[in-house]
């Protein structure tokens, strides 16, 4: 477990309450933290594009040059805190402020809200990476081209037409082929015979096939 730093911050509102400007109002607190950009400290513009949304925009926080922010005027309670940046993803958090002004931050878990996974407070938030909005286009590659069905369709018949007759002309392969043909003839029953048997009487086929085998 990380050690939890609990800071009790008296907001300025509370201060002014002490001065007696506002009466009978619950004290308000300030959540503070800092965002670390993935682009580096010196890059500009990301601070402006980033906003802190508490409870989906009910309260807002804006970033200073160094990435630090405060969200003020929060009564005690439980809040979701998310970082809205169009380019980088940050993990949303839940920040709880107790009645006594104690702060606790934990990872946001909608599924099991009671699971406490504490995060250090004041918040230090680092980007979890660039958001990838776009699908990668397929790159053109020579292998894709060659193995595409259309190319195969064109090349294979060519092969069949051009190469096979050549092979047939070769005397050795001719012999081999003949041998192969003989082998296959020997092992396989005649297809036409089998089909013919199928359509003839039911009892006969067995005998006939036996007979044919005997004949062979």
């Amino acid at each position, binding site marked *: 477990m990380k050690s939890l730093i609990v800071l009790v911050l008296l907001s300025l509102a509370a201060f002014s309450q002490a001065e007696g400007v506002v009466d009978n109002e619950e004290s308000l607190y300030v959540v503070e933290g800092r965002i670390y950009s993935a682009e580096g400290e010196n890059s500009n513009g990301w601070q402006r594009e980033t906003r802190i949304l508490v409870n989906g*925009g009910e309260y807002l926080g804006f970033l200073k040059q160094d990435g630090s922010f405060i969200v003020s005027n929060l009564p005690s309670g439980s809040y979701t805190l998310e970082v809205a940046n169009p380019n980088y993803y940050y993990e949303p958090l839940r920040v709880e402020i107790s009645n006594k002004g104690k702060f606790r931050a934990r990872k946001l878990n909608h599924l099991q809200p009671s699971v406490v996974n504490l995060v250090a407070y004041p918040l230090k938030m680092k980007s979890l990476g660039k958001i990838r909005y776009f699908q990668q286009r397929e790159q053109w590659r020579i292998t894709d081209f060659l193995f595409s069905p259309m190319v195969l369709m064109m090349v294979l018949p060519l092969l069949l037409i051009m190469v096979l007759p050549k092979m047939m002309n070769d005397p050795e392969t001719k012999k081999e082929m003949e041998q192969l043909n003989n082998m296959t003839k020997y092992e396989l029953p005649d297809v036409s015979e089998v089909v013919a048997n199928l359509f003839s009487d039911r009892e006969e086929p067995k005998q006939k096939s036996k007979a044919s085998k005997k004949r062979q």
Partner: protein
Amino acid sequence: MESTPGQRQHQQSVQTRLFYRENSQLYGSTAGAEIATRNQHHNIIPALKSSSIVGSGKSELRDESHRSIGFAVLCGPACGSRIVVVGGPLIGLIAGMALTVASGPVSKSSDMCSKGYYILWTLFFLQFFTCVSCLFEDQIGKFDWRQRYIGKIRFAAFDAVSGTRKILVATEQNVLAALHPKSGNILWQQVLEKDESVQHMHVGKELVSVSGGPRVHVRAWDKTNGLLAWEWSLSQQQSARARWAVDKGRLYHVVPLDGQLEVSAFSLESGFDLGSRRLAAPWTAGGAYDCVLVGATVVCVTQHSFYWTSLADGGAFAEVPLASFDLTPAAVPVLSGVGELAFSLRLPGKQTVFLMGDKGPRAIHEASATASLLATPFDSNIMFKLENKPDSSALQVSAVSLNTGVEVDEYSSTLILGSKFSPCTLTAAICIKDECAAVLSGDDHTISFVNIPGQITWTREEALASIISTEIIDLPVSDLDAAIESEFGSKQAGIVGMVMRRLTSQVMQIKVLAQTVLGLVQPASSSGPSRASLIRDTFGLHKMIVAVTSAGKAFGIDNLRGELIWQIQLPRFAPLHVGKSPVVPLYVLRTTSHVPFTPLCAILGKDRLTGEGLAVAFEPIKGLVLSSDALGYKVQQVMQLPHPDDEFLRGLVVLDDQLKVHAYPPESKANAIKQAASLYMFTTWPAKGTFAGFSFAHSTKQDLVATKVWELQLPDGPDREVVAVVGKNPTERVNSQGRVLADRSVMYKYINPNLIAIISQVSDSSHKYILNMYLVDGVSGAVVHSATHKRARAPVNVVHSENWLVYSYFNEKMRRTELASFELYEGKSRSNTTAFSSKSNSVRPLVEQQAYIFPSTVDTMKETITEKGITSKHLIMALPNGNILELPWMFVDPRRPTVQTGEMRDEGVIPYTPELPIPPDAIINYNQTVNRVRGIHTAPSGLESTCLVLVYGLDLFYIRVAPSKAFDLLKDDFDHFLIAAVLLGLVIASYVTKKLAARKARNQAWK
């Protein structure tokens, strides 16, 4: 879930008020207890799966192998109850039953959802997101555009000190921005809190903004890049007469109290409270006074005297009688600040400018009461005066020397605005050397920049930041097609005339064909918004967006590039209100398809001055106002006639607040009376919680008469609030009438076009808030279904389409947003195969329901719509972080099973996961943030696959989406080259092989 006695009692009261119970078996506490026990057995998933709850009572629908297929009969005829019907023959059947959908305990972790298991599910389920809608990087800006707006100016100032000159503005929409003085483009902008407003802006070393209330934010912004420099906050009493001022590193806040003025001072940068003083001001007691801060001096006026004092040292008020300036006003004058040193005193008829000196105010100039005055900062000592001249549609700008009070002729100029004229005020002015410039803010929310002397160099149409209703309209066909259309359109012409017309149109066709072949005529280009290019295209993707704003202005926008084509001023037009939200009913009375007749749109609103109804009819392609009629009554409800008349005009039927019926335009009354027998209207009184249905069957031949046939009164609860009333899109078509189950049987959808979803919220002592949802048939008043969410509250966003309903709400117990999803089915047989009738339909639909966790809040949502309804439906959701998410409806399908069976897989239903994902490639606006979305409008295109989406709020965003992928269009990256190469290759190969074969045959023959 503990059901305390209090809660039970409340539930009971809800039901007894609403229903007369006949069979209490499934009601009230029984159902609640049922839920409670169930929730203890299962964990996360059953807590959200409410279908199991329903199924527990009567799950009658089983397939042949006696396995429950997930449908539950909500209420058989036995438990149908009746409701008292007001004044009509129809009996509203109620089959309502309160069901708790969500808010179960989801806290305990158990074996079922150990983390690994969950991740596995999620992974499984993400594979369904196989890029249905995502974009490729090279498609940026191809189908979409975004326009950024800031709203109407509240404060503006020139920044001439820092590097680049810019205009700093704070607007009524609570936005701070810097505009480029040459082009008006936004250099930077900061969108502050949503429902607050900027109270003060001060430009010094930094831009200081004071916004909000009663909790006030004081923030300082870097002028060049818009970054926050420092911020602090304080709580203050709210008062319309409170004033803020910044002077010498201090922030002053002046609040009038009873007989006193309280001045609080703060250190500007740290917010340190420097104490407050109360100045005795007995003349404020009656409230008949006005105050203004001029620099660090507070100046007040009553009917008799001026009072002033310095904020810094704070002595007592000094007094000068008004009579010493020869002023004897009849009423309290109005004060307004004129720059840092001067102020003006406005009386009926004239206004006097006073310069504030050490010895008190000194009158220097007199101007007309309507003139807008502003002194430039620094030492130029010039005050600009702007006078509106509506007669000549012009603005008269002149300058007055503050030293002498005499007009300086060299700076006077007349700005002629023509039809775009709207009264303007000066908001910022500056003079550097001899060049002056000013920023004007129009009543129609425009921001204009003027060089003085000179003309307006640019104008920003900020009314587009407050769009209320929009419509996407087909463009008209080309003249040639129109000629062909008109051939069939007219009936008077005889045979000879028809033949002549046919011949001429054919000659025209040949001519156009010849011209295109010879390349004499360029095909209508999409580059310019010229009138000639506003012609319907082949795929129906080019359309016209009509947008009506709350600023009393309507716009026509080209949907392809986002150019403004036309704008019309509606100076007296103000939106109607339903509850707090403004609405402007916008109807297309006649579409662009009926060529000899002009297309026609109508908007209904109220007169800004009298509050009575105002209807404006306009032509939507060219933007011409055809008529603007004061209706003479207040509009309660409006409805469009289902069938057009002989001139293809579908008029409106308007119900006024006295429940009298009117037709608009008046000539469509005959058509309305013709259809009256089958015409029904539904209306609500959200404040009273009353809903009523009207029939027009009792109309006579001369008059339309509305008879109330049913009324539904929501039970009174503490802080009862009707949060949403949503019907279905009348243009929607449902292609598939049923859903094919795994065993090849068909489950028929309950498609009732008259179904209306009503969601109300009540606060409760034990649950804090309870949301109730009722599905009501708008014709018969029958409550088809109802559900209750305990410890749930608004914001509620509803999407109601086809046979399903999805809405988002906030679950208070779990502190998260959830989506509840309902689906209605008739069963395995259809009650009526030809047309649906609310009157004859006695089928109680089977209801599937489920809830899902949504990992963000939802600003607004809408379903996609396509021409024939074949394409699957997606939800377009606007999230508060500025993203627009396209979520397939399949993800919120209430039939998603907790346990994946083979059957469900065959059907293509994804297994249930409690939390929905927000995958980044389903965000259709990629990194173009759309701020403060208020509405989404979807419209079909000519292509079945494609839906046009317009998102409006502070910004405008348009995109077209293809929910089932672009199945009827070639892909963007379709490889024409490869196809051509392969074909060519095949042709060549066949020729070559033919030659080779011939040669071989010849050689063989010679052997």
